[in-house]
């Protein structure tokens, strides 16, 4: 009897289970769940916009791991490398020419592109030049009264390569070739407007700002005096001569013909003459026109950091938490041509921090400094630079060492 009772219960359970398990197959069609079942918002966007090929094909797993990942958004890899798994450098070397756009170099494709879909071509986050203006401030590019027509239209990529280029400024062709694609450089009108000099092969951006300017013909803000007077013969042969663009003297002698006193500024213990076989003045200055002070070729810090790469690396390092506010204005403290003081400083080390009375108060109440206070480590006179590093530091107040550890202990042995 007991056995019959057991068998009945067992049979009922089996029947019950078979009914439960077979019930869904009657109502719902069997199929695998797709990513879009849980992400319907994406489905809507894809249907309305231009979609990234893997998204369109439903191949989500080409970028995402459906189970687990160490990266945000369950991405298979970090952003730095993920895009490049498919978008490898093509034969044109789109990503790997000499000058690489910062986001491309850093693998930050999503600064300009959407990953899934976009209403714009190339999955761009915004239309045409608007993408560029996300980072490149419109106010600085169109700072002048007049702007280049292409800049006004936001057609940046007519001249610039967005990923990489063989040319400075990511321009698509060499400077003269690029401009001459639109400007008729061999026509008389063009030559006449350049005082009769055949400048078709010259670097146009040497005199013109290709984006915008307050001057006519987009000329740069400061013009070298002879050029402003159309007196090109101060430096070049006559426009009617056989070789009109040839310079009348070589190297720095050409500049010293007029800038006699400047020569003296190099005659110091620390002299910034940088030896190579070009006119060394042109390492920093533009002989025609410039938007920077002193006819510098670029903004001051850019000119200095072009050679002082290690300084650039140090001052931009994440560990350099504390920076002097004038760090990008090198000439606030340093004399660019030459100096009798250490490190090309404008004044002696001990007086350097008080130029323009910047740190007048600190000199009164700080740790004793001056000619009578001697650093026991190197027997030098103590001054602000003994403990502070104006070029940037990982410690507060630009201190050279950790103030809670070794800074004081270097001299004060406890």
């Amino acid at each position: 009897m007991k056995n019959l009772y057991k068998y009945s219960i067992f049979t009922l359970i089996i029947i019950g289970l078979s009914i439960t398990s077979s019930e869904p197959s009657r109502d719902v069609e069997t199929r695998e769940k797709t990513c879009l079942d849980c992400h319907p918002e994406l489905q809507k966007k894809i249907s309305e916009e231009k979609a990234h090929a893997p998204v369109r094909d439903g191949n989500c797993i080409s970028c995402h791991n459906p189970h687990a990942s160490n990266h945000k958004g369950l991405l298979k890899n970090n952003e730095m490398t993920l895009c490049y798994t498919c978008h490898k450098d093509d034969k044109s070397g789109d990503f790997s020419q000499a000058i690489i756009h910062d986001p491309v170099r850093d693998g930050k494709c999503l600064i300009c592109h959407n990953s899934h879909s976009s209403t714009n071509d190339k999955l761009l986050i915004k239309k045409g030049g608007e993408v560029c203006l996300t980072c490149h401030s419109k106010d600085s590019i169109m700072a002048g009264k007049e702007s280049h027509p292409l800049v006004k239209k936001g057609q940046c990529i007519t001249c610039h390569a967005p990923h990489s280029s063989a040319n400075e400024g990511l321009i698509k062709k060499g400077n003269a070739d690029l401009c001459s694609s639109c400007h008729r450089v061999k026509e008389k009108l063009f030559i006449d407007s350049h005082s009769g000099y055949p400048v078709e092969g010259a670097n146009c951006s040497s005199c013109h700002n290709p984006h915008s300017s307050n001057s006519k013909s987009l000329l740069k803000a400061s013009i070298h005096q002879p050029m402003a007077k159309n007196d090109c013969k101060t430096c070049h042969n006559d426009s009617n001569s056989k070789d009109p663009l040839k310079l009348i003297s070589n190297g720095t002698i050409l500049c010293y013909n007029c800038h006699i006193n400047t020569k003296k500024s190099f005659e110091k213990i620390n002299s910034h003459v940088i030896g190579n076989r070009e006119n060394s003045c042109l390492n920093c200055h533009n002989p025609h026109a410039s938007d920077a002070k002193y006819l510098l070729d670029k903004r001051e810090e850019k000119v200095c950091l072009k050679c002082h790469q290690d300084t650039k690396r140090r001052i931009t390092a994440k560990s350099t938490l504390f920076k002097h506010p004038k760090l990008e204005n090198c000439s606030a403290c340093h004399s660019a041509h030459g100096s009798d003081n250490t490190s090309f400083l404008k004044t002696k080390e001990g007086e350097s921090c008080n130029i323009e009375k910047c740190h007048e108060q600190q000199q009164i109440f700080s740790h004793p400094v001056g000619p009578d206070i001697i650093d026991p480590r190197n027997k030098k006179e103590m001054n602000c630079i003994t403990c502070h590093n104006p070029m940037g530091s990982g410690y507060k107040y630009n201190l050279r060492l950790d103030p809670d550890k070794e800074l004081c202990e270097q001299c004060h042995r406890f």
Partner: protein
Amino acid sequence: MPQILTMNKNLINHRDTEAQRKNKFKKISASPCLYGKFFIILLILSCLAPTYLFSADLNLIASLSGDKIMGKFNQPSAVFFDELKKRLYVADTGNNRLVSFDHEFNFISEFDAGGKLKYPTSIVKNSKEQFFVVGGTARDELFLIDIPKKIFKPIKIKNIIARENPFLPDNLAIDKDDNLYITDRGNGRILVVDSNGRFLKEIAVENKFVDLTDVQIDTEGNIYSLSTLEGKVYIFNNKEGSVSSFGKRGSRANEFEFPVSIAISPNRFVYVLDKHKGNVLVFKKDGNFQFNMLKKGWGNGEIYEPSYIYIDKGNKIYIVDRGNNRIQIFQGGK
């Protein structure tokens, strides 16, 4: 092989008979795999050995920062050690003088040509007891100093090849034939002239943007130079006339941040002084990086924004520790 046996004794089962144990010991000690590991360890140690030997052997033997008699240095630029007289000469640029020390680095005297010597930046001495010094108010002159004959005069280099910029002498070196090697910071080249100032040849590299900031000559007459901006060492082979180069700028241990001076040790290692790194990078002549030496700082044995390195025949390493306003002398391994 006792170490190997000890290391592997746990492989032997405690239940093994004595004969089995002996047999296993034999196999273990003779195992080619273990020999391989042993030799790999030996190989690694032998590779590391020179590093430890050299760096451990470096001792600070003098730190010259001046005293009441000679006063303090003011931005010294270069040194030269006279092997015959065993004297050290320092170009004390900011004080417009040359300072001499004996072989124990005691101050002997100073020389300023009666106030006529300005901004001396480099100094060498030939076998005829004549000094050659770069200096002058415009830092563009080469002077001959012959103390016994009481001569102090600028040398005009005859038949010099004119280049883009005016000739601006900077650093000096001298070979066993008393020929002078002068870096021309105006034109990125090295001029070779004889003791009479007669131009012999110029040395430069193809890339016209290369600056050649320092120069040294080894005992075979090979010329070593340095480009600060490129971060590269150039070696001009004396016999073959070939040029080789190595190095680049960067922040790794074997890369240069701001190399300013070069020296060759008696065993022909190339020492490059890096001003901003505050250390010395040592290479073999083929560019194979060996080790870094010294560190940035202010204490004895540390260097801060140094400007010049010189190595004498006894492997004493002289560093013009300009940021600390002193000359530090180290004894390298013999």
